[in-house]
């Protein structure tokens, strides 16, 4: 392994910042899901890089769990988005204000 671990950590931080930027700027609910996927992938890169760094497989197993949870989260999120679209004819997150006190 010749690439130092700092580069992987910097890459995952850049990906996390890009995902955060996407969440802060977009108003489409689908873009929220995609940005969350980018952030989850950044966390996974960190986990696997440190798994190799420490020579321990816990990080890899944990990355598998994170991927399973991300799949579940996307299933729920898409269900909510489709219900949102059916009720409001839009996927903008600023339109549904029914539950605002």
């Amino acid at each position: 392994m010749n690439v130092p671990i700092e580069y992987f950590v910097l890459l995952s931080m850049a990906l996390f910042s890009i995902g955060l930027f996407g969440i802060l700027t977009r108003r489409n609910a689908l873009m929220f899901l995609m940005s969350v996927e980018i952030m989850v992938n950044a966390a996974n890169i960190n986990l696997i890089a440190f798994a190799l760094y420490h020579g321990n497989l816990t990080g890899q197993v944990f990355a598998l769990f994170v991927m399973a949870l991300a799949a579940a989260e996307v299933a729920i999120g898409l269900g909510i988005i489709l219900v949102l679209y059916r009720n409001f004819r839009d996927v903008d997150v600023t339109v549904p204000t029914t539950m605002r006190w």
Partner: protein
Amino acid sequence: MTNGPQLRLGESLLPGILAVALFGVMAMIVLNTGFADEMVGFPEGISVTSEIGYALFDFTALQSTEGSIGNTEPFLISFLLIAVVLDAALDAALVLAKRETEGEPIAALSSVSTGDSAGAQPAATDGGAENGTSRSSGGEQR
């Protein structure tokens, strides 16, 4: 729909500055942290995939003991918890996809529009969308 991709810029200056500042802070923390130059790595001659499987199912007797790869924690309980969470996600997705009209649950994949229930509508084989014509003619289907 065949227009090219367009960038969406503007009115995102503050979140952009915030994201770049966050990246700067984290990069400073990383660059000031002294990591070891050499990664430990995995020992030669063992299969990483097999070791992942042994760790997932608590096969500690089969786990390799050389190096620090033998320190992998057993993960059977978390594996089962993730399985339960995935089942819950499947159920929740089905509940979300189900429509409720007049108190009757309508199947998610039925192709019958429930807005106007006039006339004979096709493809009600799932028993979800029964209309006035089939109900007034006996009602033995339900």
